Every structure is written in structure tokens, then in C-alpha cells.
């Protein structure tokens, strides 16, 4: 075999492998979306129907108007969004303050704080479910979205600080010093110099917190009682009813729950990775 032919063969092999990986990853997602647009006779069948030839919006409209557990899917979407956005707003402010402290100052207790941050990330959050449930009840936040927000802020903060601190550290200190010498106050320096430069990192951290809060099942399951307060992951459980499973409606709901996350992911994919493995790769 000539070197050229061999090279070509390698290329073909690599591209085939790449395509297979792509198909393996995308097919289940595609199947979810496809099922949600198929008419029931094409869903409940033992044959393979790759495309919804009997295309229908019936399931999508069904979940948006009729919904499940007595409410339209809009209600659950709104609840999920309230929790996720609330978590992001409070969480990123706290994370930014703490990240600035550890990235910009040398102080007593700094190393202990960072080690604590690392260790609390090892604690399985599911293990804290019982005490957090009782505490939320004691504080009178049971069955309130605010209770969920408080919990999610706690669960996402250590990672948020950890990720954001590398972004703050990456901003050259000389810029702040220049502003300082020009007579800017500490707050102005922070707000006008550091903040705009850290903003991309803040967006990445926020999206991470948003997704964590949006995806949560276990805390929403035990902290919300009234069906009108359910979030999307909890509401989805109610489709698996006694009357047999309405897969079209389930897949339509899953699609609605998944699309915003996919959009966010594609937006920040690069920073996600650099944030998650921050510190491991010296660059």
C-alpha cells in the first residue's frame, strides 16, 4: 500500500469512528424529540419508524394546555426557572465576592478556606437531604420555592467559588492598581475594572449553577408539597401513571426541559471544561 493510500484509509477510519460516536451520543436525544412529534400509532409500534411521518403537535399542545397533576407544564417550567434564576442571582454574587477575596488578597485562614471548599465538594449532597429537609421545615420555608433557592445556593456555591477564582486570578492585577492610583475607590475599582473583565467567567459559573438547580430532582421532591409548586423534574414523574405510559407527552415534556440546557451548554462549552478541570492543567 502506498503511503498516500494508507493515509487516506486512516482518514476514512477516523471519520467513521467519529461519526459512530456522534450517532451514539445524539441518537437518544433525537429519539426523544422525534417521539414527541409522532402520532400515537407511530409511537406504540414494534417496528422502527425513524422519522415522524405522521407529524403532530398534539403531545406538545397537550402538555402545555392539559399538563399533568392538575397544572399546565408552564407552571412547572416557571417554578423551575424561578428556582434556577434565584439561585444564579444570589449564588453568583456570593461567589464573586468570595472568589475576589481568595484570588486578590493574602490573608490568614485563606488556605484553610480553600481546603474546606475542596472537601465540601466531596460530600454527597444527597447525604444532606434529611437535615436540610428538617431545617427548611423549622425555618418555615417548607413548600416554598424560596426554600429550594436557599438549598441550591448552598449546593452550588463551593464549586462556583472554586471556578470563579481562576477567572479572577486571570485578570492582571496591574489594571486595578492603575485605577487605584488614579484615585478610584475600592468599589469603583471592583465595579468598573474587575467586574467587566470577570463577566465571561461569571456567565459560565452562572450557567453551571442554573443547570444544577434546573436539573435537581431529590430536593424538589421532598421540599415541595403542593403540586402547583413542583418543578419540571418532579412533574415528569407524574406522567408514569396507572393508565399506562403516555410516551408522547413524556417525551414532549422531556424535550421542553432539555432544550434550554442544551442551548446553554453549547454557549459555554469551552469554559465549562476549563472551569471543571481548573488547576489540573498548568497553562
Amino acid at each position, binding site marked *: 500500500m502506498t503511503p498516500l493510500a494508507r493515509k487516506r484509509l486512516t482518514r476514512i477510519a*477516523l471519520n467513521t469512528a467519529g461519526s459512530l460516536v456522534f450517532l451514539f451520543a445524539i441518537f437518544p436525544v433525537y*429519539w426523544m424529540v422525534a417521539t414527541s412529534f409522532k402520532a400515537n400509532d407511530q409511537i406504540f409500534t414494534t417496528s422502527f419508524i425513524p422519522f415522524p411521518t405522521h407529524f403532530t403537535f398534539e403531545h406538545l399542545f397537550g402538555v402545555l394546555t392539559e399538563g399533568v397533576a392538575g397544572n399546565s407544564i408552564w407552571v412547572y417550567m416557571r417554578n423551575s426557572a424561578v428556582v434556577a434564576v434565584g439561585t444564579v442571582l444570589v449564588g453568583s454574587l456570593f461567589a464573586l465576592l468570595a472568589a475576589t477575596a481568595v484570588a486578590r488578597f493574602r*490573608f490568614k485562614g485563606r488556605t484553610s478556606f480553600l481546603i474546606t471548599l475542596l472537601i465540601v465538594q466531596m460530600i454527597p449532597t444527597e447525604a444532606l437531604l434529611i437535615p436540610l429537609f428538617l431545617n427548611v421545615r423549622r425555618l418555615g420555608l417548607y413548600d416554598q420555592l424560596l426554600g429550594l433557592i436557599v438549598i441550591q445556593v448552598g449546593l452550588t456555591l463551593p464549586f462556583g467559588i472554586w471556578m470563579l477564582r481562576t477567572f479572577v486570578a486571570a485578570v492582571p492585577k496591574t489594571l486595578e492598581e492603575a485605577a487605584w492610583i488614579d484615585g*478610584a475607590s475600592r468599589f469603583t475599582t471592583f465595579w468598573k475594572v474587575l467586574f467587566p473583565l470577570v463577566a465571561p467567567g461569571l456567565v459560565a459559573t452562572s450557567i453551571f449553577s442554573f443547570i444544577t438547580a434546573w436539573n435537581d430532582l431529590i430536593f424538589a421532591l421532598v421540599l415541595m408539597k403542593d403540586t402547583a409548586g413542583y418543578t419540571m423534574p418532579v412533574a415528569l414523574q407524574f406522567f408514569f401513571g396507572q393508565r399506562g405510559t403516555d410516551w408522547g407527552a413524556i417525551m414532549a415534556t422531556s424535550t421542553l426541559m432539555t432544550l434550554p440546557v442544551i442551548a446553554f451548554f453549547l454557549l459555554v462549552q469551552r469554559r465549562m471544561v476549563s472551569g471543571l478541570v481548573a488547576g489540573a492543567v498548568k497553562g
Partner: protein
Amino acid sequence: MTDTSTLARGGANTSAPRRRRGSRNHARGSGLPDWAVPYVLLVPGIVVIAGLLLWPMIQVFVMSFQSISLRVIRGVADPEWVGLDNYTKLFENDVFWSSLRNTVVFAAVTVSLTLVVGTAVGVLLNRLSKGMSTFVIIGIMCAWAVPPVAQGTIWRWLFDAEAGIINWALNLLPDWLSTLVLGRADWTGEPWLNDAWSVYVVLVLTVVWASFPFIAVSVLAGLKGIPAELYEAARVDGSSPWRTFRKITFPLLKPVFAVLTILSIIWDFKVFSQLYVLLNGPTNREAFNLSLFSFAEAFKAPPKMGTGAAIAVVLTLILLLVTAVYTRQMVKQEDLA
């Protein structure tokens, strides 16, 4: 003002500039002495972490030695101290041992599979052309982005007994091959989610599918940082691809692998949402893992929060033990100074 500060900065007296700067801060409206600034910035973070993570951790430990009745949950009675009762009862419970086994075996299998598949895909991505690799990355990002509850739902649908596409696909296999490898030819109506063993087959697939992309993209990011000359040299020396991976790629990416392993272990030890959906809630006790078992004990009637707490403590201890070695390494590597 400018004059004095210049003077002070140039002065030999070390205490003078400090005092001077302090007064300048005051003039600029922050009112805080320098040393206090980081502590003030840390206050919200410390309050949240202490109140929502560290304190509950202590609470769950204490609660594992208590009996918590409904009256305690309602806040009208105090918990009763029962010593090691929760633990002794737990260790006599068969469900605990099967949950423990499920948790550990599942984590071991899933972490290794995810790392192997993810690394292989990462190496592959590095060799693809730019357009092709972007295309594949977008595909795998979609899998990674699917929320855990939706992951469980999708795979439950793929493995559906009647209309699931997996049973359809398995029926496509030639009968002799299907019988030889899988022990049967007809898969119509095979209920995958009835028995603990096959539930875990589905769960492993679900979790590997959703988590290999992260490994792949991280490995790719690491690979991009390795100078091309090293590979060039290896090629000139006639090194085989496997040897190149072992002698160059792996050692250089060791820190990345350490982090990826530890993160995968943490994630896979406490899988909850996907299993919850696949089992349709805490129903089949044989298929419980520790997270689901703890949840079921504490929140299914009658609530046994003490036992649930004991299970949570066991889960946490195992996880901390497994990750302790890695954590130490990470603390050492990370430049905390």
C-alpha cells in the same frame, strides 16, 4: 493629599505607609481597614457553606444516633437518643448490603467504562480534522447536557418492553448470534426494568452515555496542551501508537486524569435521579443503591429518618475514604499559596 502620600510611600518607616493608606481608604468611602476587606467579602460565602453544608453534615451524623418520630418532624417533640441502634439494625438488613453492593459495583464499572470510552473519544477528537471534531463535539455535548431526569426517561423509553427500540434492534440480530452471545433469540416484550440486574445494565449505559462527553472534551483540552514536537520525536523513533500513549500522553495528562477520576467517582457513587426514573420511584428494593435507600427509608411512610441518616453517613464515609487519596494529591498540586 497627593503630596503626603507620595512622601509616605517613599519613606523608610514601614509603619507609616500602612497608616497612610488606611486613612486614604477612609477618604475614598470604603471605611474598612485593609486587613478586614477579604474577611468581609468572605462573610456571605462562609455563612452559606457553614449553614448549608458543614452544619447539616454534623447534623446528619448526630441524627444517625437518634430516632426521629413524626412528632419530631412536626417540631413538637425532641429526638430520642438510641445509640448505635440505627446502625445495628441497618447491618442486619439485607437491603442495606444489596444497596451497598449495587453502589460500589455500579461505581467501579461506570467510572472505568466512562474513563476508557471518554479517553478514547478524546484521543480520537484530537486526530480528527477541525470541522469533523467540532461536529462530533456538538453531538456529544447534546448527550452531556440532557438533565439526569430526562436521561432516565429517554433510556427507559429506549428499553421499553413493548415499543422500545432496543428490543426491536436485538430482534434484528441473526438468531444464532443472539442465542450464542445473549442466550436468547426473541426479545419481543423483554421487560428490562423488572429485575435488579438488568436495571443496572440500563443504568450503566445511561450514565456512561451522559458522562463520557465530559471526559472526552477534558482529555482533548489536555491533549491540545502537549507540544506537537514530542509526538513528532516519538514518530521518528518508530514508537507504536499505544506506546506513545503510555509513555507521552498518559504521564503528561496524569493530573487531568486524577481530577477526572475523582469527579467521576463522586458523581457515580451517588447516582439518584436516573435510577429513580428507571425504577419508577423507590419501588424495587433489590435494585436500590445507597442514595435511593436512604431516601426511601427517610421519606416513605413510615419515615425512619434516623436510619436514613445512618445510610447517608455510610455513603459519605465511603466516598471520603475513596477520594481521600486523590484529594490529598490535589491539595498538594493546587497552588493554594
